[in-house]
């Protein structure tokens, strides 16, 4: 069974963020019921989902700050500015929901390298563990590994995947000495190990030895928020780079909703050189006030059909299913009952916000946070 890593975006998540009724797995499952291959069965019978959560690290950091500040904040001898800072810091524990609402996690990821790297290691560690486990088993069709990331998660995914494939994770281990008895039990001759050591390429997840079969970036923020390499120059692309024998992903889909302003601040554009394996997918359906939501993106057949077809080797939609998919209505779901003028008003407000998002500004991160806040207001206003 193929593996699909899921990486969430901005905001506080629960432990069940991926499996809850409105989460991406159940949304994908409902969408899959339209296709005879999956009808009557749960999508988990076909795809090995691996949700990766990282917002709990932000939670822990804010809680620690709040606790440290709590002891000191009201002491009268404190200098005024420091007292104010401690007052604010002590509230971080109680106000987490508010802080995350305004994208504080973005500030923590992007502004604090120490925390950004910790987040990246969470994603890298989980991916590496699953890849190592699944590929160690020989037999049948080798498992393929895909990634679906959303919003801030596209940036976290991009940074983490780039590091997974480009850093020398084993360099310390090689310096420490020879591998142990497990290697001998696997039956590889000493010459193989010596060859690997001599080649001085201690990353067993590098391009050429491993590749992702698909990477789906929904509401792609990697151009704006990345911390390791501009996306057009990283290894996270469907082209071989730096002399590798294969690219790091077979298929790359950058999915953008026409009215989603989040991906429009310093928008990512698929380079021409990446095509046709790199694709830009534009969608414009309106099924929920929160058009930016992970699940909302998955509703569109232009997203979930490629995703399902890449993740399930023997799935391809029938001719009838293709015809129905092409007739996917623009309005539906929670917005189907809106009056025509309300639909027009929502579209118009979103279009104005998109136009504002694309405006050139000096402080792009600040502008992104402002746009994010305004999108939430629109979504809450319609709900």
């Amino acid at each position, binding site marked *: 069974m193929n593996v699909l890593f899921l990486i969430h975006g901005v905001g506080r998540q629960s432990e069940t963020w991926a499996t809850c009724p409105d989460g991406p797995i159940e949304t994908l499952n409902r969408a899959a019921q339209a296709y005879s291959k999956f009808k009557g069965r749960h999508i988990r019978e076909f795809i090995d989902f691996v949700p990766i959560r990282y917002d709990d690290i932000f939670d822990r950091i804010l809680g620690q700050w709040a606790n440290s500040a709590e002891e000191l904040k009201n002491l009268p001898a404190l200098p005024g500015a420091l007292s104010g800072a401690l007052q604010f810091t002590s509230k971080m524990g109680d106000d987490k929901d508010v802080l995350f609402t305004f994208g504080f996690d973005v500030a923590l990821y992007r502004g*604090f390298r*120490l925390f950004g*790297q910790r987040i990246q*290691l969470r994603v890298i560690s989980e991916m590496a563990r699953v890849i190592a486990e699944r590929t*160690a088993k020989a037999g*049948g*069709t080798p498992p393929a590994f895909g990634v679906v990331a959303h919003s801030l998660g596209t940036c976290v995914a991009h940074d983490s995947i780039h590091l997974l494939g480009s850093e020398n994770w084993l360099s310390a281990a090689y310096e420490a000495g020879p591998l142990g008895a497990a290697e001998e039990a696997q039956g590889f001759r000493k010459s193989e190990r010596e060859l690997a050591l001599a080649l001085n390429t201690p990353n067993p997840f590098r391009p050429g030895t491993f590749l992702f079969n698909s990477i789906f970036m929904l509401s792609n923020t990697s151009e704006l928020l990345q911390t390791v390499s501009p996306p057009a120059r990283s290894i996270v692309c469907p082209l071989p780079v730096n002399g590798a024998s294969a690219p790091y992903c077979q298929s790359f889909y950058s999915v953008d909703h026409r009215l989603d302003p989040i991906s429009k601040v310093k928008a990512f554009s698929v380079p021409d050189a990446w095509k046709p394996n790199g694709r830009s997918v534009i969608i414009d359906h309106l099924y929920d006030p929160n058009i930016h939501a992970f699940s909302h993106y998955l509703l569109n057949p232009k997203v979930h059909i490629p995703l399902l077809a890449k993740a399930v080797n023997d799935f391809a939609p029938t001719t009838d299913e293709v015809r129905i*998919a092409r007739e996917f209505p623009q309005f539906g779901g929670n917005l189907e009952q809106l009056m025509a003028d309300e639909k027009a008003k929502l579209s118009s407000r979103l279009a104005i916000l998109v136009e504002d998002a694309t405006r050139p500004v000096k402080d792009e991160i600040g502008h992104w946070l402002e746009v994010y806040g305004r999108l939430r207001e629109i979504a809450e206003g319609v709900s």
Partner: protein
Amino acid sequence: MKLQALALGIAILGFGMPAGAQGSPSDEGFIVCDRNYSISHPLSWENLARQLPSPVEFRTSAGFLLTTLLRSHNQSEVASRDLFASKIRAVLEGKSDCCAQFAIKKDVDPDDFSTKLSLFDDSILLSSCGANNERAPQLDEFRYLAHAMEILGNLKLANNRTAAVAAIRAKEEEFDQMIFHGFPMFPWEALANSLLLTSRQITNGPPANQLVFLHPSIGAEVQVGLRESHIQPSLALEPLGFIRYPPRSKHRTWWGLSFLTTFRGDMGLGLGGMARLQNFSLGVLWHDSDNDGRPFNSKPFIFLGLDLYQFASGSLRRYEGLRDEIRQTLKESAPPGD
């Protein structure tokens, strides 16, 4: 080993790929020219593993696959066969890495939803089965050979991947140790340390040194020469200092030095320095006790960070109780109007 390989080779050359290979239990693998994956196919890994020399050795096995490919009667279209063969040779000759290039690609068009299978970035189209499906045996054989090469590559790297996973996990733990269990940082300190001391290279791990910057804490002061009854609670602020995590300590132990200022309700600003080992801190400072505008001509004070005071006092007070006592005393000793 050679007899086994010869036997398998004769079976393949003599009988080709049995048509009954299709329709056998499927692992939901790719459908190549209407054929599902079948474990009964002679080139399925399940069959190959029984025939290859044990333990599995990469070069010998890859060489066997190359020989099998070149001798197969199913390889009717020579150009494709030779292209596939060149990919295996490149690996055996050390000219290319292995074996991600053998992963079958399924292209899916998000506009018309069409799908297409291929190898080597569309160089071999596994969907071009011919008008009468006449290319099915050859293309299906490519599928099994490609899978076998991928599996060989994965097995070759299995131990390295396991080791890398452990190395990555160790890095995670080291970051956690510093961020959540090391010397605590307030937000402005975390920002300074991120900007100034955290390496861009993630494999370097968290910084071995940590900046202390406007770091507040509480403790107690006692003037040198006086008895314990003159111990006074004190609010400390380290304007600048550093923490050092020794090599090989994995951020579990640390020591540090800082400039020290203290604030007390009963006398003016204290100035001095402080040393710490783990969460224990000990400082020396001067207050202008005699109000002559020269703090350093007075007797010095010793500052004990909260943990060290608790340890030195020898009593079994709970940390929380002692902390509250100090805070309350500091509040009560504040000048009116604060």
